[in-house]
């Protein structure tokens, strides 16, 4: 076989830059039992420079997973517990008057860090959640009249409890769209849970080692950006996203009344970026349809607005995405 130079060179670079992937998985595996998909999703977010929203009932190691990932990377980390009385200034910072200097000075909030763990983000009202909008999209924060850049890498990893639970506020569409992935965390398997119980009884909690520097992540991100994505794959991604907007054009008339709004252009961008990151994790210099399908649910599930008809019919965004994937022709 004769591969073209670009892909061969890219594969070599990937081989070199992705060596830390296995190490991260090993370190994560020390602390997190099972939850392979959760770990892969965190890596995709880390490599594709996309924020991650984890959803699941309490006790599924969501916070622990993010904490562990942060500890593996030698970078600044802040954990913000979102509560109903939290204020936007508690997140981004505020102007404080100094009597000594007789002037206002900026007190930066906990968002000025590399990794932000927004724990139980939907326990705070929308005004606090929205305070993260600028930080997440522009990687900057405006306090008073000044705009401050956030450190690189900057990643928001949020956890939320299912919206059906008491005392939760739904995230605004603009906010939720800024998360590249929404990962639904499920219960561990029986064997995995047995191991968790044993570890807790023995009080033996292994700790992950710090093995990565922020520069490693930035370098890896540059390689991820270069992962080749063919025009056919781009077309496939667009078909999937457009099917969420205009299902009737793809022979999915039954979903027309069930979808209030489909994926935004950010969905297409994130689907492409996450596919590249997934291909990188798989040590490939190019994206194949399997990559797109592997991360499609995580990228799209929070970007499809369901109508009352869908709720009445018990149709979820998961069902719609699955049906779309089973309908759109693979290149």
């Amino acid at each position, binding site marked *: *076989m*004769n*591969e*073209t130079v*670009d*892909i061969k060179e890219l594969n070599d670079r990937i081989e070199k830059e992705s060596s830390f992937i296995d190490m991260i998985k090993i370190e994560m595996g020390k602390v997190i039992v099972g939850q392979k998909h959760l770990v892969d999703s965190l890596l995709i977010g880390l490599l594709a420079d996309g924020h991650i929203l984890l959803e699941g009932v309490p006790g599924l190691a969501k916070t622990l997973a993010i904490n562990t990932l942060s500890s593996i990377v030698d970078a600044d980390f802040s954990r913000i517990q979102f509560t109903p009385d939290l204020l936007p200034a508690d997140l981004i910072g505020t102007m404080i008057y100094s009597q000594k200097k007789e002037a206002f000075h900026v007190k930066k909030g906990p968002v000025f860090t590399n990794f932000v763990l927004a724990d139980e983000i939907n326990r705070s009202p929308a005004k606090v959640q929205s305070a993260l909008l600028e930080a997440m999209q522009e990687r900057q924060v405006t306090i008073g009249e000044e705009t401050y850049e956030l450190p690189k890498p900057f990643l928001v990893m949020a956890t939320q409890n299912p919206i059906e639970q008491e005392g939760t506020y739904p995230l605004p569409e603009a906010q939720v769209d800024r998360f590249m992935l929404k990962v639904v965390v499920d219960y561990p398997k029986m064997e995995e849970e047995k191991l968790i119980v044993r570890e807790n009884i023995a009080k033996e909690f292994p700790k992950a080692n710090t093995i990565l520097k922020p520069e490693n992540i930035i370098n890896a991100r540059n390689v991820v950006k270069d992962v*080749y994505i*063919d025009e*056919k*794959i781009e077309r496939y991604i667009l078909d999937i996203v457009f099917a969420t907007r205009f299902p009737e054009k793809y022979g999915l008339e039954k979903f027309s009344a069930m979808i209030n709004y489909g994926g935004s252009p950010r969905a297409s961008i994130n689907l492409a970026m996450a596919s590249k990151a997934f291909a990188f994790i798989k040590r*490939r*210099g*190019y*994206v*194949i*349809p*399997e990559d797109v*399908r592997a991360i499609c649910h995580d990228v799209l599930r929070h970007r499809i607005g369901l109508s009352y008809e869908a709720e009445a019919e018990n149709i979820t965004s998961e069902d719609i995405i699955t049906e779309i*994937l*089973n*309908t*759109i*022709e*693979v*290149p």
Partner: protein
Amino acid sequence: MLKIINTYKLNIIFLIVLSTVVNVVTAQMVTVTAEMDTTEFLIGDQVGLELKVTQPYNVFVGIPIFDEELTKGIEILDQSENDTTLLENGDWLIKKRLLITAFDSGYYVIPPIPVLYYSDTIKSEPFIFKINSVKVDTSEAIKDIKMPYTAPISFAEIFPWAGGGLGLAILILVIIYILRKIKRKEPILGRIKPREPAHIIALRDLSRLMNDKLWQKDRVKDYYTVLTDILRMYLWNRFSVRTLERTSEEILESLKVNKFKDEEAYNTLKEILYTSDLVKFAKFKPVGDEHEKCLSGSYSFVDRTKLIIEEKPTHPEGEEEEAEAEADSSEKYNKGKVKVLEKQND
């Protein structure tokens, strides 16, 4: 002159007297009687009234034609034609029968019924009859005297409904038929064209791809795209595996799930799909013989996995052994049942 006048007067008087005498004599020979079947009946009942006129055969008698009412309160429902009978004494008996009823209780009088006899009128004798009302038992609740009468249903009444129902049933069957045809994507009228076997379609498409010489024209990506499309369509037609919406990995997995046993064919397909993926998605450019290898591999895969239709003969009982001996004769297979056998070269 006076004598002539007196003689004339006498003649006239004689004629008048004679005429009167004749009339009186013949009038006494015409009799009119009226009698009812019964003189007492219930309100609303229908009773016959017979008018009888006896007369010499050579005189004229005018029998009346009655209106709807005989007298106030007595209705005539029907009246017969005059029925004339010759009596033994040579006179005529004329009968006319009326069907009468009344809807009010009490006593009624049948008035004298006049019959014209020349300038005279001869009348029947009047008589009385009584109409009784229905006895009401006030101690019981009000109820129907008789239950409603159910008229028999005639064919003319049933026909529109039966015809309409039959028409509606036919219409529903026609609609169901048309909908089924549409659902199966079959022509509504006319015969269904039998589907071509999957391998015939695939082999024809592969020949067309070879003739198009896409990779020779440096359209390598198009070449592999068409090649995989042909194979995917073949797998869909042959194994009913949904391939168009699945990735290479998923297609291979589906074949395993479907217990695809030909390992060599499986590996050939796997190699073709993976090479095609590299070309389509990774800018991979295979060398010349790899293009031909993929094409020949596709031919081989289709050939190894094609559906073979074998005809199995049917024979009467007891002739099986004899039939087996003659099984080589292809002529014997012509009337046999068709049995579909899958060629598996494992």
